[in-house]
């Protein structure tokens, strides 16, 4: 998730102009997402009618692949870029609406287990990435950014930490490039590994939420397995996102104690500023659904609206991923990130398999 991401091109523009500028890109997200949905429905039916053996490809994958194809062939024209950047916004709105499908009891039960796993994952990931950074003699603040990006929530954690520890722009660009490239790889490799290992639905959803860094990629990696796993991956990832303030605060205090960052004044205000508000929205909608504020049909409508929002997100994930741009950043951050991510994926997989045995999933 990237709560700190803003749309720089429209910052200084007037509100009406800002709104107009996002329209072409949002329409492109809608067109690609809807094309993905149509392809899911029609390609399978066409193949079946012609007796072809063709795997059932979900709309999630179609939308991502269509976006990737455009981004890496003709590119995304300037006029669409501001609107395409809103895909994180639709992701967060979709997550809030998805709260209607979770009863509070489920959240407490699953959230309790995932909270323990998330705490172990964050501690282990930060320790390992710090070790790797020292081993590869990376700059300490670059190591901090990579550690936070891979332990908590990808790009937004890096952006939030960058401001809090006064890191260089170059270091944050390095870290963001590495996290995005690895997120794209995880998106495709997690479902394949999950199927190969015959992971149970719950174990896979937990793993995707724990092991994939960006919320958009974690949601997509879960949804590529099935809708239910997508929901679980979102819940676990949101638990990870909720930890962002604490981790950034700890690093801000650490770097301030070394005289290399500004001291943190009001810690509670700092935590609130960094806390992802969509997690609160998700919980609030879940509370309303638990106490029957919405009837069954309305819950169905909210869930469908959430899927439409995710459809725009998946199109945006594809459009945002440009392999040429990533290559320009060089191999070094990618190599460090890749070693770390593979280790973290293995570590979180072991955690989930261990938890599955303990809880009998």
């Amino acid at each position: 998730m990237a709560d700190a991401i803003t749309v720089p091109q429209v910052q200084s523009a007037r509100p009406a102009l800002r709104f107009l500028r996002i329209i072409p890109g949002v329409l492109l997200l809608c067109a690609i997402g809807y094309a993905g949905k149509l392809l899911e429905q029609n390609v399978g039916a066409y193949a079946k009618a012609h007796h072809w053996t063709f795997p059932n490809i979900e709309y999630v994958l179609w939308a991502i692949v269509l976006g990737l194809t455009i981004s890496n062939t003709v590119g995304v024209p300037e006029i669409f870029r501001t609107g395409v950047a809103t895909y994180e916004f639709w992701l967060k709105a979709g997550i809030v609406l998805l709260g209607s499908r979770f009863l509070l009891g489920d959240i407490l039960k699953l959230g309790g287990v995932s909270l323990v796993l998330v705490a172990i994952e964050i501690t282990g990931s930060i320790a390992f990435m710090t070790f790797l950074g020292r081993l590869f003699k990376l700059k300490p603040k670059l190591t901090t950014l990579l550690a936070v990006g891979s332990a908590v929530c990808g790009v937004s954690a890096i952006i939030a930490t960058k401001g809090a520890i006064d890191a260089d722009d170059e270091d944050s660009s390095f870290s963001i490039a590495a996290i995005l490239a690895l997120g794209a790889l995880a998106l495709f490799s997690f479902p394949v590994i999950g199927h190969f290992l015959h992971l149970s639905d719950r174990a896979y959803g937990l793993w995707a939420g724990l092991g994939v860094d960006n919320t958009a990629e974690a949601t997509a990696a879960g949804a590529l397995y099935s809708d239910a796993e997508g929901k679980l991956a979102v819940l676990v990832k949101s638990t990870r996102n909720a930890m962002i303030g604490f981790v950034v605060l700890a690093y801000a205090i650490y770097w301030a104690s070394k005289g290399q960052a500004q001291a943190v004044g009001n810690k509670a205000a700092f935590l609130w500023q960094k806390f992802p508000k969509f997690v609160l929205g998700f919980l609030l909608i879940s509370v309303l659904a638990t106490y029957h504020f919405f009837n069954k049909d309305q819950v169905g409508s909210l869930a469908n609206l959430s899927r439409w929002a995710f459809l725009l997100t998946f199109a945006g994930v594809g459009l945002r991923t440009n392999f040429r741009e990533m290559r320009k950043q060089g191999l070094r951050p990618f190599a460090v990130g890749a070693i770390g991510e593979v280790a973290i994926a293995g570590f979180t997989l072991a955690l989930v398999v261990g938890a599955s045995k303990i809880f009998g999933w």
Partner: protein
Amino acid sequence: MSAQERAVNPGDRWKLSLDTWAVVLAFVAALLIRAGVFKHVPW
């Protein structure tokens, strides 16, 4: 970034983050569905 640059502009204090706008939009949509303005959202 200097301390001066970091000082909060009084106008910014009330500016909502992207995150919060997403929550606002989701709740407005939820309330419209609850109020029956949108009877059914198809998939």
